[in-house]
């Protein structure tokens, strides 16, 4: 049997990884690993991971990596980048960490056009803590804290992250939303986001739509259907802002 090649920047002693079967994190991290390899930045990359399922990536890469606190990865990466601009800093977080508890950091880092890259995995719930409502939970979606379905009258509508980041950032920022169902495109967005940091243009942000069959309580077919039919309808995929050439919608 021929196994698929693993990115050089993956840290093999921690493989196979610890994400649930069917989880999209592994796909996002594979795209990130290949992008790091192709850009040749492994030795100068500092990878910071948030609390939540993102945390399981803390020793995923053969890159210098730091755990932080829930929502606080963005300021830690800002501190590193401000101290050592020659390093490539990647903040990796979930929708809860980025859009809820750490939203003030994401928003202000975007406004300041901090030259860091943030990759945010949107799986419409808090996975690690057992499937509570996230800012990205879809209307009507059942979670542990919305057992009768999310009611926008009570909890508002899902946060559209790349849209708000795009609205806040100025020239030089890169903003995109990809999905684990379109791997090549997702990898291209992540690579662009890193290239944008390498060029020192501005804040770089990629949201990756992802899957959580454990907490969605879905089988393989339902999982993929929720991603492609529900999530991608609500959260449009594409580049929202790119100084690297013409944006792709």
């Amino acid at each position: 049997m021929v196994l698929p090649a693993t990115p050089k920047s993956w840290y093999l002693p921690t493989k196979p990884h610890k994400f649930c079967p069917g989880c999209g994190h592994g796909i996002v991290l594979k795209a990130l690993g290949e992008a790091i390899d192709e850009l040749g930045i492994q030795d100068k990359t500092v990878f910071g991971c948030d609390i939540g399922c993102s945390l399981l990536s803390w020793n995923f890469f053969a890159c210098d990596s730091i755990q932080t606190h829930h929502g606080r990865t963005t300021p830690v990466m800002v501190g590193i980048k401000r101290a050592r601009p020659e390093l490539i800093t990647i903040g990796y977080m979930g929708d809860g960490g980025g859009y809820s508890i750490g939203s003030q950091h994401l928003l202000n880092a975007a406004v300041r056009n901090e030259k860091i890259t943030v990759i945010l995995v949107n799986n419409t719930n808090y996975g690690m803590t057992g499937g509570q409502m996230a800012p990205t939970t879809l209307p009507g979606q059942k979670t542990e804290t919305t057992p009768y379905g999310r009611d926008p009258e009570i909890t508002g509508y899902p946060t559209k992250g790349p849209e708000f980041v795009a609205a806040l950032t100025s020239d030089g920022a890169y903003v995109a939303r990809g999905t684990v169902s379109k791997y090549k495109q997702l990898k291209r967005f992540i690579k662009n986001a890193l290239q944008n940091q390498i060029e020192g243009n501005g804040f770089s942000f990629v949201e990756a739509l992802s899957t959580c069959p454990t907490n969605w309580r879905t089988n393989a077919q339902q999982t993929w259907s929720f991603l492609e039919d529900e999530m991608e309808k609500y959260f449009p995929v594409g580049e929202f802002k790119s100084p690297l050439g013409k944006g792709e919608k």
Partner: protein
Amino acid sequence: MQKVIEKAGKAFLTGNEAAAWAALAAGAEIMFGYPITPQNEIMHYWTRLAPKYGRGFLQTEDEISAGFTVCGAVQAGKKAFTATAGPGNTLMQEPFSMAEAMRLPLVAIIQQRGGPSSGTVIYSQQEVTLTTFGGNGEGHRIVYSTASHQEIYDYVIKAFNTAWKYRFPTFVLGDGYQAKMREPLVMYDPEEKGMEMVKPYPLVGLEGKIGEGREPQHLCNIYSMEEELYEVVMKFAAEYEAIAPEVVEYEEKNCDDAEILILAHGVVSRAADDAVKALRAQGIKAGYFRPITLRPFPGRQLREVIAKSGAKKMLIAESAYGQFDRLVKQEIYGETIPIYNLFMPGVGIIDYDIVNKVKSIL
């Protein structure tokens, strides 16, 4: 790095200004800050001076971010610091606890204001508990409580060395009076004075190719099993206790024959010092003991003072409702000397207050 103070000389400054100069002289490379009274002028002077010496500054979105950006910058190997007060100190307990957990050489200057809540913007000694034992940890921190502008200058410089030498987050605990008053002090270059400044070094972003001469750094602060965390915390505790004797600082005066011992810290110790002089002039044998490090606390030294003086009474004076008193009592558990207190939360204490209190309990 460019020298900041070419020649030692007298200056007449506010405490906040002295703190900014001291951070520069200590070789701090970047400050992260968020406005809150009464520490603002540390940022104001830093932002004016820093660019002249090639140092950095970022005004963050809040104190949580200021603390975490400092965590990032020190992990990247730069001497970084922040300054805050009151509710800002409350918010910074989160990054301070990360610094404790990851042994980060974070330096923070705290200029205490009144509490609880927004309290006053002016003065207190009500951030003692928060600064020594805040966060969800074990108080593995080093806290210097300063009493004068000279000490602010001296201990801000020292704090960077302490933090980078021992890798415990280090605090200079001042207050609004010290922050805003003007006072003479001598500013100097620490290396000219013979102090060796500890060199910073990175934990991430290391030199070399990964897999060919170096391993990737994976730094964690969360553990899968209780036993893993237990071992980490016990190791930190043992290391903290081992370095404590080298770090502890205190001051005592007139204790040898004292019938009453007066304990105070920070700016209140100046009133205590004056009160001792006044009481002695009136024939009352008073002595004075002042911890300079609130963490680690000079507990053994205080017990020795109690023993050698044979004092019959002890008075604890503070501009808080017993935060310092609790620190003292936990350190001298088992001593039987009666303890009296003068608690004036959020207001200043002068020698007269202490003299009157002493007379009322003798």
